[in-house]
């Protein structure tokens, strides 16, 4: 490390060792000696773990390409992805996917357009931008491509193509709109449009159907998204209540949060499955999927409240004092000054909560018998064509891949967002 000492004034400053990775200018031999065989112990570790990783890689390779019998996935792909969703209405799902892609593209475009107007945008050449996108989404793209090839029918290809096209078009349109001088009519119109699209699509896809026949991976995604959206207002209210100056309110919120955080989600789901019927009149007792959403919402609200509380505590007192000084009422202090900053600070933590909720949706399948991905993947091994062949390994691997790709992409994006928001550095 002697070469890492640089003279700064008269004091030597020690620089942290930099991990140069495999692409260093000094030859491969030096790299190997430095990164694999620095000390005898290092050499032993390299040999042991190198052997282990070679064996594991070999096993994975043979399982994926040679011994794995993936026929069961191809045959049951629709069941795995959307369960017993009525075949006559699958088109609605495709329209919803395209609509959501357009919605996301519009938001991304507006944000970058605003940035460009404010002069804070990072101007990247097109090639760098494409490389950036590939770096972020290559794993997701590969899995989607795999699913499309596996599906083998033109429908999904058309849907994904249209979704990409819609996202691209609205991304450009949004960028153009965002760069224009803000015009009150356009701003209000856009805000209304953005707020109306998700509930509109929700009503469209559910009209006359209900979600009791939903299943597969779609149900996992739906449960997670629904619950996170519904729990958000409740969580914010609980967080505000826990920090409020009204002792009774504070006390009630604290008790609720601590009870829910102390109880396992699995037991709550079992309780809702077995005993919810006792607590509401029999005519009101909801269907299973609704019960699951209620439990997930009430459960996640407690965790969301703690996350938001962290955000509220990160707001300097000066902000509230400044709001008071300009004569805002307590409600306006909270809504206009405190909450916007607090919520921005906790976006990454909220995405973390969304990921864990998304993984927990498998519990609804175990506790309530909902037909979600994990349940489907164990159920299809009992089909007549595949019974008794020990195919659970293949189906579980497929389910794991589905969960992994979504959770991994979300957590990567959340880390990126964290860096861009500069949480903790401001």
């Amino acid at each position, binding site marked *: 490390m002697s070469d890492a000492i640089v003279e700064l004034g008269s004091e030597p400053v*020690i620089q*942290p060792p930099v991990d140069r990775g*495999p692409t260093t200018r000094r030859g491969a031999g030096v790299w190997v000696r*430095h*990164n*694999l065989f*620095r*000390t005898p*112990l*290092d050499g032993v*570790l*390299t040999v042991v*773990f*190198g052997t*282990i*990783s070679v064996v594991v890689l070999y096993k994975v390779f043979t399982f994926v390409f040679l011994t794995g019998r993936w026929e069961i996935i191809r045959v049951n792909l629709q069941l795995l992805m959307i369960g017993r969703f009525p075949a006559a209405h699958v088109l609605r799902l495709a329209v919803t996917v395209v609509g959501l892609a357009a919605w996301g593209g519009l938001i991304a475009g507006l944000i970058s357009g605003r940035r460009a107007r404010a002069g804070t945008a990072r101007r990247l050449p097109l090639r760098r931008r494409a490389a950036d996108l590939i770096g972020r989404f290559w794993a997701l793209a590969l899995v989607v491509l795999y699913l499309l090839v596996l599906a083998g029918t033109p429908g999904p290809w058309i849907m994904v193509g249209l979704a990409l096209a819609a996202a691209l078009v609205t991304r450009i349109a949004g960028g153009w709109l965002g760069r224009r001088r803000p015009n009150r009519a356009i701003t209000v119109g856009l805000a209304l449009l953005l707020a109306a699209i998700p509930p509109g699509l929700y009503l469209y896809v559910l009209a006359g159907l209900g979600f009791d026949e939903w299943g597969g991976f779609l149900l996992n995604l739906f449960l997670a998204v629904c619950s996170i959206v519904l729990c958000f207002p409740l969580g914010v209210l609980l967080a505000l209540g826990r920090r409020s*100056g*009204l*002792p*009774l*309110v504070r006390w*009630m919120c604290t008790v609720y949060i601590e*009870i829910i*955080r*102390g*109880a*396992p*989600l*699995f*037991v*709550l789901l*079992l*309780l809702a499955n*077995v*005993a919810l*019927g*006792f*607590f*509401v*009149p*029999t005519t009101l007792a909801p269907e299973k999927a609704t019960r699951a959403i209620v439990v997930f919402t009430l459960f996640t609200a407690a965790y969301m409240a703690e996350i938001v509380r962290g955000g509220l505590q990160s707001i300097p007192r000066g902000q509230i004092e400044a709001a008071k000084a300009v004569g805002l009422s307590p409600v306006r202090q909270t809504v206009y000054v405190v909450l916007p900053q607090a919520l921005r600070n906790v976006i990454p933590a909220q995405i973390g909560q969304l*990921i864990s909720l998304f*993984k*927990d949706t*498998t*519990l609804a*399948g*175990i506790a309530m018998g909902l037909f979600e991905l*994990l349940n489907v993947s*164990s159920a299809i091994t009992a089909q007549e064509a595949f019974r008794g062949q020990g195919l*659970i*390994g293949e189906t*579980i691997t497929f*389910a*794991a891949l589905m*969960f*992994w790709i979504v*959770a*991994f992409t979300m*957590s990567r994006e959340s880390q990126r967002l964290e860096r861009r928001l500069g949480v903790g550095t401001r």
Partner: protein
Amino acid sequence: MTRRVPLWRDVRVLRWIVQLAIVAVVAAIVIWLYGNYTTNAAEANIPTNFDFLDNPASFQITGNSLSQSAPVRDALIQGLLNTLRVCVAGVIAATILGTLVGIGRLSSNWIVRKIATVYVEVVRNIPLALFLVAGLLVIVLGVLPNINDAWDFLGLVILSNRGLAVPWYEGGSGRGLLLIMLIGGLLWWAVARWRRSVSNRTGAPARSGLWGGLVFVVVMVVGWFAFGYTWSVPAVEGRATAGGMRVDPSFFALFFALVIYTASHIAEIVRGSIQAVPLGQAEAADAVALSGFQKMWFVVLPQALRIAIPPLGNQYLNLIKNSSLGAAIGFYDLTLVATTTVGNGSPAVPVFALTMLVYISLSLVTSFIVNVANRRMALVER
């Protein structure tokens, strides 16, 4: 004469009115729910009290001598003990594995670093339930051999799809053994303290771990023979193993799934905490020529632990709560005992209320312990 503020504009009065209104709404909802419960229970003729605890359980817990006629109370206690067993073992193993992986992510060895990273990124993003199902259905029932050609390690450990059998003590009570261990532990602590004080006075190396450990081993060996304990080694007899202690396959699957899953989260905490220790500390350790292990063990890890304790405590709480998933693969923990007795006719609401109460108490006790540890480790400033 000062004019009094009218009541409807007095902030103190308004605050109480708002609070009472909110309390009234919440109370109304709770009373409504409770009223529904009592009427529904009365209609269905289901008791709402806790008398069911004395009824016979009429089911058996695998790996336990509890008879069918034992009361529900005893079955629930057995379930709680099973939960505690898997939680204590899981917390210890997950901490060790998580710490190793967390250090591995910062290793200077390229292969170790990559393996640790892949492990964390893969395991963290897959639901625990998948590991459980895979652990039981794929590993235990698919990979492990039949009892007749069980894997036998040195004639001591027998592993098959009937579970794991290990050598265990015989010829005395478990309490006696625990007592010996407790005495040994106390002596270890006293000797280590004495060695440290000697070291402080004279400057001689303390070697407190070596001395304490030796004393502990001596106490254990003496106690073992004094109380007449012997080893019982497992052997295959027909369709089962005899002797030793048998660990149920469901315990096996639950334990490994919990450890592998929780360790991936603990690894990230450990990595973050190590990175939060100022670099100067490690460099100072290098400067006084400590070895790599000494640098970690005496300088970096103690300081990282201080940062890591609160999030570690959260992970322990998660592990305890996640252990309820053992019910999904037939491990008789508290949750599965509760659902089974409900299936056998115990009233659902009291059983689940009791179960929740137990889990909440477990969580509170754990967070209390973590808080105490945190307070003891915290830097005392000024």
